[in-house]
């Protein structure tokens, strides 16, 4: 059981070590969805939900694996649980909000390969978080992901209205913006200790 307090875990995951801007997790969808604020928010919500479920499942799986002494099954079981959760979210979304489902398009199944979720499960295992700590961790990570997405989408929408040289347009500009955001987030270092 890790000694960190809940508040510091949350702040750490959301701000100080933001999953996207500090750990580079979740970059593919980050650059794919962040050009429009609305899709960014929806993606963020979906990812946050999957993160929460994945965190709880990873904790339970880990207990099971430790009990049977099969640590080598960790990666494969985590990723299978994550894919199933994403399938579940897809089905729920199709049923309850078909418009959102269509708007998300290819990005929804891509959440499975979103390194952020598997990264979340692996980090919480490596740091030996207890159950509540793991939940707080996933909430913080989700919040941080949404925050980074919103900031990024906001900037990119503005950028599109401006004259940007052809070579720099698109991904290159997005990368530079991400780099600057990342530097900004470094200012949160030490928060919550």
């Amino acid at each position, binding site marked *: 059981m890790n000694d960190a307090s809940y508040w510091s875990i949350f702040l750490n995951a959301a701000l100080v070590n933001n999953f996207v*801007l*500090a*750990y*580079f*997790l*979740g*970059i*593919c969808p980050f*650059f794919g969805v962040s050009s429009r604020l609305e899709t960014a928010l929806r993606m963020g919500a979906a990812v946050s939900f999957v993160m929460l479920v994945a965190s709880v499942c990873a904790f339970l799986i880990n207990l099971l694996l430790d009990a049977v002494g099969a640590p*080598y*099954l*960790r*990666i*494969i079981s985590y*990723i*299978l649980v994550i*894919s199933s959760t994403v399938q579940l979210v897809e089905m729920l979304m199709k049923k309850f909000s078909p418009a959102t489902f269509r708007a998300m398009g290819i990005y929804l199944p*891509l959440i*499975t*390969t*979103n*390194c952020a979720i*598997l*990264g979340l499960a*692996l*980090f919480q295992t*490596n740091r030996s978080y207890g159950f509540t700590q793991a939940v707080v961790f996933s909430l913080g990570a989700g919040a941080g992901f949404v925050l980074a997405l919103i900031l990024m989408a906001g900037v990119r929408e503005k950028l599109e209205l401006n004259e940007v040289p*052809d*070579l*720099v347009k698109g*991904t*290159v500009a997005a*990368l*530079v913006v*991400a*780099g*600057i955001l*990342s*530097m900004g987030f*470094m200012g949160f270092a030490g928060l919550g200790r």
Partner: protein
Amino acid sequence: MAKKTITPTDEFVKGLWRDNPVFVQVLGMCPALAVSNTALNALAMGLATTFVLLMSGLSVSLLRNFIPREARIVCYICIIATFVTSVDYLIMALSLELHRALGAFIALIVVNCLILGRAEAFASKNTPARSLLDGLGMGIGFTLALLFIGVVREILGSGSLFGYPVLPDTFQTWTVMVLPSGGFFAMALWLLIVNRIKKKAADAARKPAEVTA
């Protein structure tokens, strides 16, 4: 409709430049940026990913008639995760230090969109021999891309290359380059260069047509 025959060499070479996973397809960026703060880490990560690409591509290709369409993603993920777990233990057996340096990112190879993408787009539809070549090409292209980023970050950020100092002590290292921001900037820089080269090539290819028109 005649299918354009692609030579085996082309299967291999396309991953190096034309369809480079990082700079052209913009896939697999997470590890590209995360572990490229030193050239050695970048190389190790690239090789580990190449190993998984090769083995999973080969397996998927060998089993392609055995895996039904509906269950294919789950099966691919299982196979990829198996080889990622394997490479994780192999690295641990090889060098504890390297394993610690790469950390959780070895396990994260399993969600590298590149591997699933190649399994789905190529290995499931081609012979094992071609899949091997494709995997090798993509893997080496990926490793080279990672190395480019890693070399820039390490030289500017630590003044060294593979641990050996290459810049004089008087050089004030750009620490930002070994921080996450540096990853974004280095990637942006290389992408810019690649875009420029591609644009020049496209312009050159267009010019003769314009002249004759």
